[in-house]
Structures are given as C-alpha cells and as structure tokens.
C-alpha cells in the first residue's frame, strides 16, 4: 500500500484500485477543533480536484478535494458522530472516504510522504 499527498493537504492510501482519502495531520492542526464533516455518498462520481467533502472547524469551513478521479465506495460513518476523530487521528481513523480509482496514472502527480514533509516545512 502506498500513501500520496496533495498540495491541498489531502492524503490518499492506495490498495489495488481502492483509495482511502483524508486530510493530513498538518491540515487538522491548522484547522483546529473540527465540529462537522460532510462526506460524499456512495456512488458519487468524482473527478480529480472536485470538491468531495466539507470540514468545519469552530472558526471556518474548508473544502476537501478528491486527489484522483473515481467513484465513492463509502464515506466514513464514524465522522458523523465524532468529527473530532479528524483531530485525534487524522491519518488513520479520521479518514473521509474511500473510492475506486478510475486512472491510477493520476497518482504520478502527487507527493510521497517525504516530499510532503518537505512541502509543509516550507509553509
């Protein structure tokens, strides 16, 4: 399984043709206390860069974009009851949605973990 990051602070874990998407630890730290997450429904078609989810902190609402194109398999139901999972475990239990990838070639433009760390260090 491989993990990739976007410049908009989403991560995607890829296992076969299934991707799991969330936001990075850096992103949750910037947002602060998460009070609401709106995740996409099963079957929704997403193009790379589409607004896929909304995450709301006490202060502000932010869009989460799909790192790649695909069809949503499921949104994380745990975030409905406990949106603070995004704060406490952003890169595991706090995942947003899973999708089946349309074109694995789209992953080529994304950063690996080391590249993302270097990217964040410059912000």
């Amino acid at each position, binding site marked *: 399984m491989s993990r990739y990051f976007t410049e*908009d*602070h*989403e991560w995607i874990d890829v296992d076969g043709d299934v991707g799991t998407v969330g*936001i990075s630890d850096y*992103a949750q730290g910037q947002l*602060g*206390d998460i*009070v*609401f997450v*709106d995740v996409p429904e099963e079957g929704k078609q997403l193009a790379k860069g589409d607004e896929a989810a*909304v*995450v*709301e*902190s*006490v*202060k*502000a*609402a*932010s*869009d*989460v*974009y799909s790192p790649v194109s695909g069809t949503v398999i499921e949104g994380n139901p745990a975030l*409905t009851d406990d*949106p603070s999972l995004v704060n406490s475990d952003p890169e595991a239990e706090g995942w947003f949605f899973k999708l089946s990838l349309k074109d694995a070639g789209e992953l080529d433009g994304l950063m690996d973990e080391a590249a993302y760390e270097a990217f964040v260090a410059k912000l």
Partner: protein
Amino acid sequence: MSDHDDDDVIIETLALPLDGWHRARGGRMVEFAGYWMPVQYEGIMAEHLWTRESAGLFDVSHMGQLSITSDEAATDVVAALEALMPADIAGLARNRARYSLLLDAGGGILDDLMLTRPALADGESERVYMVVNSATKYDDVAHMIEHLPDAITINLMEDHALLALQGPKAVDALARLVPGVEAMVFMQAGGFAWQGHDLWISRSGYTGEDGFEISVPAEAAEALADALVAQPEVKPIGLGARDSLRLEAGLPLYGHDLTPETTPVMADLGFALFKRRREQGGFPGAERILAERASGPVSKRVGLLVEGRQPVREGASVVDAEGSEVGRVTSGGFAPSVGAPIAMAYVPAAMAVPGTRIQLAQRGKVHAATVTAMPFVPHRYFRGA
C-alpha cells in the same frame, strides 16, 4: 482543501505591546484589524470552555481607548457627546460604564462602544473614557473631531494596553493582585494601582461572564499579564474563543451584526435608547429611530438555533418557502457551551418572533433553524452580593 474565506489585503500589520508575550506562549498569531493578534493557544474549544468555568485572559489592546476632555471648562463635553449617540451620559454616575452607539445622520450604526465618566482628578472639568472597536477607531476619532466643538480634545491612548479577564473565577484571581476590585458590580469602574502603575478597571466584558477590563500602561502590560496567568484560575485565551463566547452571549459584533445599514431598533439594541433621550430627541437619526421604535423595524436581529451539526456562518441567506432570500446571517458558528451550531441573522419582522421556524441556505444546502431569544447561554454578571 482550502478555506472559503479570502484573506484581506494586508497593508502593514502592526505589533501590539503583548506581541512577544503571545508568541512566547504559543499563541497562533493572525492579522486582525491591522494588528497581529493571537487567534488561539491550545484550541478554541478548550479555551472557550475554560473561560466559562474558570477565567480567561484576553488581550484586546487593538481596541481604541479614548480619553475625551475639554480645554475650556465652559465647553460641555457631555452635551457634545450626547449629540452623537443616544446614551444618557448626563445621567451617568461617576465611575459607571454604559454601552452606546455612535450613529450617523440617518440613524445607522457607525460603531458600538463603552463609555465611562471617571471620577475627576484635581483641575479636570470633565472627562469621558471610551472603548471603541479596533477596525473603526480611526474613523470614530475623525467623526468626533468633525462633529465635536474645537475645544474638545480626543486622546487615542495608544500608550495603553487593554486586557480582559473573564469568567466566574476572574474576581478571585484579580482581587489577589488588585485588592478592592471585588467590591465593584457589573458596569462599575475605577482607578486602581498595581506595583506603582495606574490601572483603570471596569467590571464588564464581552463573554457574558463576570469579569474585568483593565487598561494598563503599555510598559507594564507584560508584567501584569504574567502576574495574571500565574494565578491558577487563569489561562491566556485567543480571539477565536472571544468570538464564540460573545456569540453565545448574544452580543453583536461590529462590522458583522452591526453596520451603517442597521439601526439600534433593527439591531434589537433598544436598551441603548435611553428614556430621556427618546423623549428629547437630539441624537443622530432620532426621527427615523423613534418612528421605527413606535411602528416596528422592517427587519430585526435575532438569534437562531440551527438544526443538525453543521455551522451556518456569516453570509448565509435566510430564505422563504420559495427559496427567495429574505434575510441574512451576520454571525454564526459552533457554540461550544451549547453543543450545537448557533447564529445571528437579520430577518423580516414577521419572522422575528421566538419559536418561528425558518430556513437558511448556505453553499447550495438548506438548513432548518428556529428563532430563539438571546442570550444562548445565560449571562452571569455580578450585580451585587
């Protein structure tokens, strides 16, 4: 991911006396009204709840502190200020604070403010101390210079910091450092001394809790802030929690819930229209405001309890059954002490009755909400033992 809000254009962001103090304590600094200000320390939610149960120290040095005096005893400072706002200043006792509104000729709100008539020092004929909003302070001063007699001097006290200590244990913490403050009641003020520095302290605030606002010479601000956070009850709190606390307290925020497009009656601030002033008129926009007060405003500021978990924020529309916009949300967010999203909005008078169910539209989604009496969290001001 990206924020929906666009950043304002930054011209020159200024540092206030406690800038280094905030940074040393891990405050996350953001540009606000032209200054670097701490938006949060450990997190807005925790800071908000700490203030409600203990005491929070807020740096509000960005606000404008004005000392208004007259160069000649014959010039009536009080009468001159009463011509610009609807407060009964003449009837205000010494060392008592009052909320008021700077109004334009049409009755629109230019700013909201707190004013006090301090006990006079030897040789003073009159003095009014005023705290106005940060983003409007230079406009306020310009407006007053234009409309007040030449003999009146307005001193913008930029050599002073302003701290707010808010919460049910604020009195315990402050009285340990400045004995005597515990004897004041809500909206009372007075001069005190701390380690040789003059402090001007009022028992007031912007959170709905008991608490104090402390004007301190800039050179003593760090030492006083240190002494306050050394008290076990006190933690530093950022602007983020200040906003969520004031929203729960039902207190409007200038530039958002109050603007030149709103009048005191529309804003549901009728308490700021004092009886003598209503009877005598003579404040800006009196004709319109008194007519509005008699017949009811077209639209009115109300509180909203929003269903579900998703916050509905400033800029969202209030929509009727056909989906047409009939009002606007002016403040909104998640309320930590309520445990749900709340908002303030301007709605048509017919919708302004508590219990009215309304619909809000935000980014293509409709949210149900109920008009509710404010505050959302009861005020706990100290009005006497």
